[in-house]
């Protein structure tokens, strides 16, 4: 397989890298860039644990090839917030009890972020739909939805 030189923006930083043409984006992020916050739950694009944001839209990075992000802006969970500056969604998830085992959490947060970036005032149904591609087995989704609602209410 050949290697391609691609340039893209990752979590706000310009990056140039050689990527194998057949490497999955999730493996590129986790193994080449050391960003293990993006998880692999199924590898088949069904569970959403590998959710990242590419040019404002969420994508399952396990079914995106690394070269596909050339020239694009990618956000992973590592780009959402830091210990010093948590994103309001991260704060809300913590406060509302929306985190149990945490494996679906990065994907959930990014799906919520993509929603709020596009629509800061979503209705309940829109919130539910925005995370419908992120499977969670622990929480039953209610507190996750509550956390997103909290951010919407606080902002408005």
């Amino acid at each position: 397989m050949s290697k391609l030189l691609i340039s893209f923006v990752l979590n706000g930083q310009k990056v140039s890298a050689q990527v194998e043409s057949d490497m999955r984006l999730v493996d590129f992020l986790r193994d080449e860039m050391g960003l293990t916050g993006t998880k692999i739950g199924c590898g088949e694009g069904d569970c959403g644990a590998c959710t990242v944001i590419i040019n404002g839209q969420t994508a399952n990075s396990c079914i995106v090839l690394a070269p596909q992000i050339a020239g694009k802006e990618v956000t992973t969970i590592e780009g959402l917030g830091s210990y010093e500056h948590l994103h309001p969604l991260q704060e809300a998830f913590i406060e509302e009890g929306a985190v149990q085992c945490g494996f679906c959490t990065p994907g959930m947060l990014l799906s919520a972020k993509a929603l709020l970036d596009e629509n800061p005032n979503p209705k309940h149904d829109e919130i539910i739909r925005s995370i419908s591609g992120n499977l969670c087995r622990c929480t039953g989704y209610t507190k996750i939805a509550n956390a997103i609602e909290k951010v919407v209410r606080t902002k408005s």
Partner: protein
Amino acid sequence: MRELNVVGKSVIRKDALDKVLGKTQYSGDIKLPGMLQVKILRSQVAHAVLKNIDCRAAESLPGVHAVLTAKDVLGSNTHGIIIKDEPVLVMDKIRKLGDPLAIVAAETEEIALQALFLIQVELEELPAVFDPEEAMKTEGPKVYEKGNIQSVRKIRKGDIETAFAQADIVVETIYRTQMQEHAYIEPEAGVAYLDGDVVVLRVSTQNPHFDCKEVARNLALPLNKVRIVQAPTGGGFGGKLDISVQIYIALLAIRTKRPVRLVYTREESFIASTKRHPYVINYKSAADEKGNLLAIDVTVIGDTGAYASYGPGTLTRSAVHATGPYEVANVKVDAYTVYTNNPTSGAMRGFGVPQLAFAHEQQMDMIAQKAGISPIQVRLLNVLHTNSKTGTGQVLETSVGSMETIKVAQAKAQEVLAKSDRKGGTDRIKKRGTGIGCMWYGVGNTGLPNPAGAFVDLMDDGTVNLMVGAADIGQGSNTILAQIVAEELGVRFEDVLVTSADTGVTPDGGATSASRQTYISGNAAHLAAQEAKKTLVEEAARMFEVEKEQVIIRDRRVFVEGAEENSKSIEEVIGGCRKKGTMTIGHGCFNPETTGLDGETGAGSPYGTYAFATQIVEVEVDTETGQVEVLHIIAAHDVGRAINPLQVEGQIEGGSIMGIGFGLYEEVKMLDGKIKTPSFATYLIPTSMDVPTVHPLIVEEPAASGPFGAKGVGEPSLIPTSAAIANAVFDAVGIRITELPITPERVLAQLQENQ
């Protein structure tokens, strides 16, 4: 109940911060220098004799460091939860599809996969058996020489023959429940490496001490030369109790002298992991004309698949809980654990009780109908209360919240459920109904010792190290154990640091299963804190010149009862201890007070305490498509005492949604021992779109033997949901579905039959 400082508060769990930042290192995220990747060669047939396995071509592939088969297992080649019947690597007989034949460690996953293709396997297929009722017959294929009936658990109480003869109401139904998959979002994973002469594993697991014993046995190592450290675990639900990656990575770490990593693919996780036992339940109930239960006669056939795993334990628990949370004087149960060549059934949230609840709750509704009373009335008439005797003859002395949960759920149902839009006229397509499901659940292993230990170290500055064996798999045990210790020692929640589930450091906590950690590890941690506090209190009493009983420690201040303004800091008192050379450390161990079950009658007191719950659901049935939508779940759970109400709510919400999956969507479809649905595309777990409005209600009937009165909730939250849904479907459209899941096809078929 008096208000406490830390216990009973919805403190924020400490691991949430790293989890929302994506910083938590699950096993699959760990990267070690020189780490090799592992793949497993699995059988593609369900029943066969393994004649030969030739790995030479695989071994020669560049990048391959080791290829191991059964002959390379250093110690015993079998493992298993109860019976050591499962091969580490198959030596002679393949008993299910997916049985492990060889393992490869290579530089990359791709090379390891290529190596698998080069392994030559010679086998002779055998006729197989996939139906447990067929498997029980004397003729036909034998999974094991000794026969396919692994065991039977019997309950015999009273005189069922007379009771049935005298009964005014008899209801007999056959129920069938499906194989369910745990579907934790994190697949099985682990890494192993050598640290001197200790082999260290960091794994996704629910029971590190059990893992340690198995690895030691299979590698012929002393227990303290195997260190199992539970990595943050992405869910378990009973599926990460059986051995998965542990023995393979340990063997390969020793063989290659390199760190090794094994992460299952999702498909592999479906194929290789255990499942909820599918059951065939023949349930016969007898009642008098008023609806008082007189007797039950139940036969349960549980397909445990190729290996026993938790089978006997599951069928035992099913037998004990078969009555439902009701007083029944005459009980006969026969619960069979049966081998087939299907994938192994093991522990799954509820452990044999969700299946029985699906049966007994529908029986109760049918009895109510024949007696001319309501579903709530029949339950109020029969429900267990303080001093009731269970089906195994155990007297329930304290903490019987069953009645309270019915009342609380009923009150909430009256408040929230739509009074209008119910059933409607004959031209309405969507019909609504409500249904009730009650449950009970013994906390801890059934009639068996299952202790947990804890160490507490109160340090010079008043911060605390708590060491517990209990594995936190996302449910939040680390948080509530810290709360218990903080409460007892009089420090803040933030002052307690928890180290958990590390066999090199923490004492055995037993498995995170049976909804037992709050009750059992909670008690152990509480006792350890009490011991650590002793010298502190003695020193304070000396300093203040009072009796020990008058010393209070709260919020890091030490004072005499009634004279809070004259307090000393906890550091000052600890300093006093140190000057005398006394330490402030403690240990605790707790094992529930139980008896075993009699082999013939099942009589005994198998649990230290029981959880109770009532769930009322409202459904809407689309009579054109057969789809059932759950609109509301009202879930009232008696947890004894909620150490952390927010976390208890989280368990109720999460468990009831998994219960919806069990009731409506989930089914591992099998054909000749092969799973046809090994992916999230074909095995449907609830998404956010499938979630109703959930009303979690905490009921507290303190357990005298529980830490601050606490019991458990992890499994209870799932148990009654499918039963309540089935009863609600009957209420909506007058059909009784006795097979799970309640699919649109089943609903339509019955609706059409009724017409």
